[in-house]
Structures are given as structure tokens and as C-alpha cells.
């Protein structure tokens, strides 16, 4: 049975919040929701989470020396290597355990958090390495589609048409032209890995995936769409509303690849046009004033439609065909 609301409330009453008040992420930022839900799920399942975070808004704003919002063991190393760092901690744990040198027999689980810059781009090599070596850890990407802590530079995750300081919308270009790198497919292509997408619009879908990832013996990866209210230019209250629209417009399908087997975890009954999503987010506003904006929207619509059709076919084709 997946974790439920009562279990979470009881956990906080008994053991306190694993991720606490007093962090300095912007009001309404969706990154702390991801940290809160993931650590609560691990705790509610009886695990002791050990957390690592890559440099980025979540890391910077939760550990302003000498303060920390983490109520669980936590390590930060650098921008590009949270997966390497957590895999080292996990290897040390396994070694100590094998040699009978651990004083606790509580099951410890290793969780790494990284932003999209730290995951799609600079941290990809260390992540691929840790997954390939088969470490038992869960990597959670909070995807806000840009290098937000340093002021909205484009990343491999920024969507086309979004205004970013390093790829601004101008008279000629409509901002970034490339679509988001498909990070879940990249990680899902490794051996014995559980990889999934999630969204802040659906905490219970996310927490069920966290549970699966933690129980999976080996590497697990979850990419959570988690808006930066500041640079997406949306109201502070609207993160989850926007990510709901992302799911309903096929912009961000909720699915998993469990050792090669595809499963769509939420199938909206009716889809909305991608234009509705684009029009609700301020960072597309400039592109919408560009003479070529219609083409950008058409291209995106075609892309998300095709990707959805492919997903349905992958789901059908891979049924029961688990790779190792």
C-alpha cells in the first residue's frame, strides 16, 4: 500500500519534519515541495534517508551556514557530482555493513537531489556513471527548466520559446529552439534502473514512485517538473496549477520505465492544446509577440502529440519485457 496522508501526518507528529521550516527558497518555489515529499515518504516507510544535493537553488537556500533546513544527514559537494558523492556514501555504507562495523541496523537509503542544470548538463556524466555502476540510490531531479540560482540561464531542459538570459527572445530568434533533452529515456537506457517522471500537481503519484525507487535494489531516477515561480514569471501560488496543465497538455507525461518496461501512470481523459500551457507562463510572453510564434506553437504541439503516441506504443510493446 502506498503511503497515505495519515501516515505522513503521524510521521511529522512523532518524528518531526525531515525537511524543515526556515529555508530561504522564494515564496511559492516548488523545489521544497519535492524535498519535503521525498524525505517524508522515505521516513514514513521506515527508512533513514541520507541526502545529497547538487549546487543549485535547493542546496544554496537550505544550507546557509550555519543554518540547515535538513533534519536528516546531508552532504553537499559541488555542482557536477552529487551522483558521484552519494554513490561514494552508499559504497562506504555497504562496506561498513559487510564488515559488521555499523552501530545501527536501521535501513539507510541514499537520496540525491539535483536541479536540471546539475542533471541534464554538468552532472550527466557523474549520474550516468553512478547508475551504470549499479549503486543503490534514488536520484531526484527537480526540474525548473533553467539555471535559476544564477539568474535564468538556458539549460538542456529549457523548452523552446522560453526567454533565458543566455538565449533571449529577440527580433530574429524566438528564444531557445531545441526541445527538452529526454532525460528519462537517457537514464532509463541504463541497466537495472527504475526511471520515472512526476509533477508537483500530483504528489501521490510522485510519492508512489519514490517508494518504488527506494524499494528497487539498484539505481532509481525521478524527474519532477517543479516550477521556479520567479523565472517562469508565474504567480507564487500557481506552481501546481501550471504543472497540472503541463500533464493535461502532454507537455509533461507522467510515466515510468521500470527496467525497460514502459508504463504511463496517469492518462488524462481529455487533452488541452499546448497553447494553453504556453499562454499561462510569463517566460513565453516575448516569444508570443514574435512574428513566428505560431510556428513555435505548432511545432511544439506536433512534438508532444508524436511523443505521446510513441509512449502508448512503447507501453504496448514492452509489456512484461523486463531487461535486467
Amino acid at each position, binding site marked *: 500500500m502506498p503511503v497515505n*496522508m*495519515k501516515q*505522513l*501526518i*503521524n510521521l*511529522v*507528529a512523532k518524528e*518531526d*519534519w525531515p*525537511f*524543515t*521550516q*526556515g*529555508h*530561504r*527558497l522564494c*515564496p*511559492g*518555489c*516548488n*523545489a*521544497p*515541495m519535492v524535498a*519535503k*515529499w521525498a524525505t517524508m515518504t522515505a521516513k514514513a516507510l521506515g527508512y533513514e534517508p541520507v541526502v545529497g544535493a547538487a549546487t543549485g537553488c535547493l542546496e544554496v537556500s*537550505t*544550507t*546557509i*551556514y*550555519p*543554518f*540547515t*533546513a*535538513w*533534519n*536528516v544527514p546531508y552532504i553537499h559537494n559541488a555542482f557536477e557530482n552529487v551522483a558521484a558523492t552519494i554513490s561514494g556514501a552508499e559504497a562506504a555504507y555497504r562496506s561498513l555493513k559487510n564488515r559488521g562495523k555499523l552501530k545501527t541496523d536501521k535501513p539507510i537509503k541514499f537520496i540525491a537531489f539535483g536541479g536540471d542544470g546539475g542533471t541534464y548538463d554538468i552532472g550527466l556524466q557523474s549520474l550516468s556513471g553512478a547508475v551504470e555502476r549499479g549503486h543503490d540510490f534514488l536520484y531526484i531531479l527537480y526540474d525548473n527548466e533553467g539555471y535559476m540560482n544564477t539568474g535564468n540561464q538556458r539549460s538542456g531542459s529549457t523548452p523552446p520559446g522560453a526567454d533565458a538570459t543566455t538565449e533571449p527572445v529577440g527580433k530574429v530568434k524566438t528564444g531557445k529552439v531545441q526541445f527538452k533533452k529526454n532525460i528519462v529515456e537517457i537514464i532509463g537506457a541504463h541497466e537495472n534502473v527504475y526511471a520515472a517522471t512526476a509533477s508537483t500537481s500530483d*504528489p501521490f503519484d510522485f510519492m508512489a514512485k519514490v517508494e518504488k525507487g527506494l524499494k528497487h535494489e539498484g539505481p532509481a531516477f525521478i524527474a519532477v517538473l517543479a516550477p521556479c*515561480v520567479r523565472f517562469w514569471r508565474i*504567480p*507564487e*501560488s*500557481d*506552481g*501546481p*496549477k501550471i504543472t497540472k496543465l503541463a500533464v493535461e497538455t502532454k507537455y509533461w507525461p507522467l510515466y515510468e520505465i521500470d527496467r525497460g518496461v514502459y508504463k504511463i501512470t496517469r492518462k488524462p481523459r481529455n487533452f488541452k492544446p499546448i497553447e494553453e500551457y504556453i499562454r499561462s507562463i510569463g517566460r513565453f510572453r516575448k516569444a508570443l509577440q514574435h512574428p513566428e510564434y505560431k510556428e513555435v506553437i505548432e511545432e511544439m504541439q506536433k512534438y508532444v502529440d508524436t511523443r505521446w503516441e510513441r509512449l502508448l506504443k512503447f507501453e504496448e510493446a514492452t509489456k512484461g519485457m523486463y531487461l535486467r
Partner: protein
Amino acid sequence: MPKYDSWKEMPIAGVIDKPATAREYNTGTWRIMRPIVDKDACINCMQCWLYCPDMAIDGIVKEDGKTEMVGFNYDYCKGCGTCAKVCPVNAITMKPETEFLK
């Protein structure tokens, strides 16, 4: 915040040797809009509790097994309004802090 008599007592490598010290800093001072709940309308579904990015809503499971949204922790609530947005029955309204100035 830990107090040291000398820098020599500080843990090496920026280690913070006490968890959850961020609570010593009140983010509630950032707030310009204050969430107010109408408990007559609230159905205690706990969505606001689950979503609050600042853990600024208190909740309990009562003896009869039902959940209850207890209220806001204004020491930390940043006034983002997410709780009001996710509430299925619109039981939370956001009011300007100026209304609460004495």
C-alpha cells in the same frame, strides 16, 4: 546557531553539526499576504498541509482517526498563497498584512 569561543572550535569543512537550525531564522517576516482559514468551510482534506512549501501549516490525526488542519505557523509562512490555490473548497483567503498592523 552554535556559539564558539574561538574559530578553532568550529567543525572543519563547513560542517553544520546540528540538524534543522534553519528554524532559528523566521521566514515569516517576508510575508506580505496572510492566509486566513475559514474553519467552517474547511473539510480537513489536508491538501494545504501537504503542499505548503514552508511546512507552515500544522495538522493532526485525531483520536477518532480523522485528520484536522490546525492552523498556520506565521513564524515561517511566506504568504505564497499555494495553500489557498490548492484548497478544493476555497476555505483559505489571502489578506494583506497591512490589515493586521496595529
